[in-house]
């Protein structure tokens, strides 16, 4: 028994070290552009863009394999910033439809399992064991990780409600095209 534990531990340690070294010495020198773009992305590794994280997404954007509008949490402002950086024009038409969403927790269903809390990339969920969890809206990027892990389906993504602070005048209606 002890030998088994020991050998596994040694194995684990050895592999861990190997991985560590590998990541250090075999790392491809990321281009300065990729790094800059990666700095602009939210860094929450939410995966909504379809890439495994913000790093790969940055590479894809820099290499032109992904559009500047790839990042839903970043929204149009990020798309514009990326377009400026890359010197391309951004087609925001599809982007405007993306209404930012934030997580809501149904307090009646939450069992306080802490799964969502552990998973949230921006620490936007607070709670402790067997306590109802709450969402800090300002920190939520709407990535949906918490929705995936919740065992009772008590987390939902909803549109952020309009408040006195967020409301602004709508654009005036346009003149009919004829004139």
């Amino acid at each position, binding site marked *: 028994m002890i030998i088994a534990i020991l050998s596994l531990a040694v194995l684990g340690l050895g592999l861990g070290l190997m991985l560590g070294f590998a990541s250090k010495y075999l790392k491809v020198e990321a281009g300065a552009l990729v790094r800059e773009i990666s700095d602009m992305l939210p860094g929450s590794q939410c995966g909504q863009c379809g890439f495994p994280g913000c790093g790969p997404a940055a590479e894809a954007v820099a290499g032109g394999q992904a559009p500047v509008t790839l990042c839903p949490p970043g929204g149009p402002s*990020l798309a514009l910033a990326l377009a400026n950086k890359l010197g391309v024009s951004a087609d925001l038409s599809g982007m405007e439809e993306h209404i930012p969403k934030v997580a809501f927790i149904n307090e009646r269903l939450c069992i306080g399992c802490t799964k969502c809390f552990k998973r949230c990339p921006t620490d936007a969920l607070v709670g402790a064991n067997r306590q109802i969890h709450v969402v800090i809206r300002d920190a939520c990027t709407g990535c949906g990780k918490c929705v995936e892990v919740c065992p009772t389906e008590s987390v939902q993504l909803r549109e952020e409600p309009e408040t006195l602070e967020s409301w*602004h005048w709508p654009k005036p209606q346009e003149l009919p095209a004829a004139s």
Partner: protein
Amino acid sequence: MGMMKLFRIRGGVHPQGRKSLSADQPIRDVPLPDLLHVPLQQHAGQPAEAVVKKGDLVLKGQVIAVGQGRISAPVHAPTSGTVVGLGRYTAPHPSGLPGRTITIRPDGKDAWADLPSPMDPFECEPGVIAKRVAESGIVGMGGAAFPSAVKLDLGRRFDLHTLIINGAECEPYLTCDDRLMREHPDEIVDGVRIMAHALGVERIVIAVEGNKPLAIRALAHASKDVSTIMIQEVPARYPMGSEKHLTQTLIGKETPARGLTAEIGVVVHNVATAMAVRDAVRFGRPLISRVVTVSGEGISNPGNFRTPIGTPVRHLIDHAGGLRGEPARLLLGGPMMGQPLADMKAPIVKGTNGILALADLPPTVAQNPCIRCASCVDACPCGLVPLEMSAAIRKEDMARATHLGLMDCIGCGSCAYVCPSSIPLVQYFNYAKGKITKQQRAEHKQMETKRLAEARTERMERVQREKREAMAQRKAAQTRTKPERSETQQDQDGEEVSA
């Protein structure tokens, strides 16, 4: 009365005054409504934080919410009664969305709380006056609702020479300041002197538009023995009441774009604010009511009413004889810069100077395309080019609109007023300003979440590292202890002996 050389400002318009509807109506008190809805955000800056709870009994003038942060203002109970609600209630805002509000059921006794003791303003330090004004929840009553204490403290940071008291009241229909000046000139003069003392300035100009001769006469009489005060008639031209334009008319200097008038040595306060300052300093009374003009062709008996803060608009309109038919639009404030009122449930707040029921509709859809007549350019008091700005905004080119000076636009509505094509120019500017703010907020949020995500990654890595280290240590200890147990034991024993 003074004889100053006045300076001409560019632009401006001459809308019909329509002040005669209510100008001859003396200020009357409004009886208390069944419920008062007192919002926590009645001022520019941070909302106040409630310090009462549901069921609490409150006395008139008692603090029910305290200011938060440097630019904020506390809120006081407008009368005595019971707090029956602490939640969200329709705000006096064009969106009609709810905001945090304390609801009080008056008990009818109107019993005062213990108020701060009266002060002799000219015996105390200027800073003490500003402090009292802050504690009394006084904000600019001309409409912008900027906390007055902040503006009374500017003497510390700037070299000030003149206090301008704004009695221009250039918006059509509004007569509340006119009535105050006619009925309470002595109190206003007293308040103005207190403010000048707080600011440390020797020169005071009270500016009143020429269409209010009775107010000018009353103030001149009240200030005849005060050598520092000059009552100055200014031409009736919209937007004369804009702080920067009034300053320019009187002093001849332009305030830097997006700067403060204090940068050129001037502070501007409104006449109603001066009166509120006097009440706070001389009697310890906080700002819990204000005079509101209820007027317009759609109001049966237009007039000027001293209204407790939190009174629903409907109650006030009922008191003015009710509506005459269905008005085309209801406005909070004047017809030029006022905001449409979404719901008559909304309460009167510290910055509400008027409730108007008007018969005509403003243009919301451009009736005709821009004919490039440049009337809007001539009308703009800020030297902007409204037609170019609105064209850029139509194309969602906010960068160009900003470059053209969008952020210097004071939203006075002069351009839209003169536009022969009825293009809703101000609505374009409001839309663009709101959109730009929203974008900035989104960017800020993104930076914030990025910081959070990084902090979390770092923490996770640290936890991992610590786990690994702990494990490595345990393993090292294990490998060491197991085969060489006896040795270790000895070592320890040895140590114990030597120790």
